[in-house]
């Protein structure tokens, strides 16, 4: 091997960078975040169901919200009919957050995990919660 020292040092740095998540997460157990559903409003629901199915909401809630926003603001359309035929007022603060009034234990749980920070709350008012 010629210039072996330099080449091996370079390789060690490269492999170290490449496997950095393994060292970074060493000793931690990764658990899927469990958004809490124990708000007063949801507890009183007879049928514990979101606007759409749970699977749909998990993957598509941001697009649903985007859709709602456009429908309300651009088309003045206020009522959303879900696939089940139930009607909801399209509102972030008054519908989603009415049921999910525990933003910190619900929305933020997933969002911190996925490293997203919706900018909605710079204008919309999050529900009042006890500071943790």
């Amino acid at each position, binding site marked *: *091997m010629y210039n072996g020292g330099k080449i091996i040092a370079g*390789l060690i740095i490269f492999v170290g960078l490449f496997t950095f998540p393994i060292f970074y997460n060493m000793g931690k157990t990764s658990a899927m975040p469990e958004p809490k559903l124990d708000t007063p409003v949801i507890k009183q629901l007879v049928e514990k169901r979101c606007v759409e199915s749970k699977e749909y909401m998990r993957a598509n809630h941001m697009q649903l919200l985007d859709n709602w926003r456009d429908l309300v603001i651009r088309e003045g359309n206020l009522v959303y009919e879900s696939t089940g035929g139930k009607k909801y007022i399209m509102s972030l603060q008054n519908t989603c957050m009415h049921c999910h009034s525990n933003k910190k234990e619900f929305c933020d749980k*997933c969002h911190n995990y*996925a490293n997203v920070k919706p900018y909605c709350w710079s204008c919309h008012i999050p529900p009042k919660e006890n500071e943790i």
Partner: protein
Amino acid sequence: MNAILSLIAVIGLVLIPLIGVKGANLHFLFGIVVPYIAIIVFLIGVISRVMKWGRVPVPFCIPTTCGQQQSLPWIKQSKLDNPSTTSGVVGRMLLEVLLFRSLFSNTKFELREGPKLSYGSTKWLWLGGLAFHWSFFIVLVRHIRLFTEPVPAFLKNVEALDGFLQVGIPGVLISGVVLLLAVTYLFLRRVFVPQVRYISLAADYFPLFLIMSIAITGILMRYFLRVDLVSIKTLTMGLVTFNTKIPEGISVIFYIHLLLVSTLIAYIPYSKIMHLGGVLLSPTRNLPNNSRMVRHVNPWNYPVEVHTYQEYEDEFRDKMKNAGLPVEKE
């Protein structure tokens, strides 16, 4: 033909998980086994290829020289294009790796009416290559969020910058779009420029199609066929903590993306993409042009047994004298 074969190969790669996950429920195979194999193949491949290169001796001092070399003190040296010191070499290498300086000086020539031969500078390849590599790098960095918990704080800033247009929800990230556009440009260039088409092999088209399909599936997952990101991160975190699990409800498009990425990772060390290590080990780029100051010893040199004239004369002096031959030393 080369292009069509490569396209068929990539379509095959898309169909395998489509059938395997949708039809045969092989989530464990495509979600866990394949990525691990790909990483192992990649690491072994990179290490062995670099070691193999490291064992190749460089017999001559052969840096590419693109400017005035170091000479008499009043002649101005082109320090970056013809470096004679280590710092010059590092500077040239950094500019090459980060900014593709040698592509910037790309020229083309045309035969015009007359007939006249005209040379011009052409920057499109440089621009496309730069856009491609940098956006790919940013996309790669952004994926760290799926492999770390808690996510390092700087990633939020990377994403905020990347998505500063704030178009739509989830916001458009510029790097992903630029990546797809750039890789498409690099592909079209191979198809439409006759000289480039002539020298293009399947090994040129295949990585382009592969990266194109990775970008397309990624963009589909983010903006169109939404996937359950939290479950996906649970899978990827399982991979890096060796605590593998397959959460429910991950749609098949994710497995397609994952197989394409695994293929790319495993393919890197055995293909032209290995230029990421090769550029650093190229003697034409990593040697200083100091051949007039430092003797470059060929590492191949083995001790040659020489028999000088002095030794010859010492050995045969008596016989030479007897035969009447002239000798240097009496």
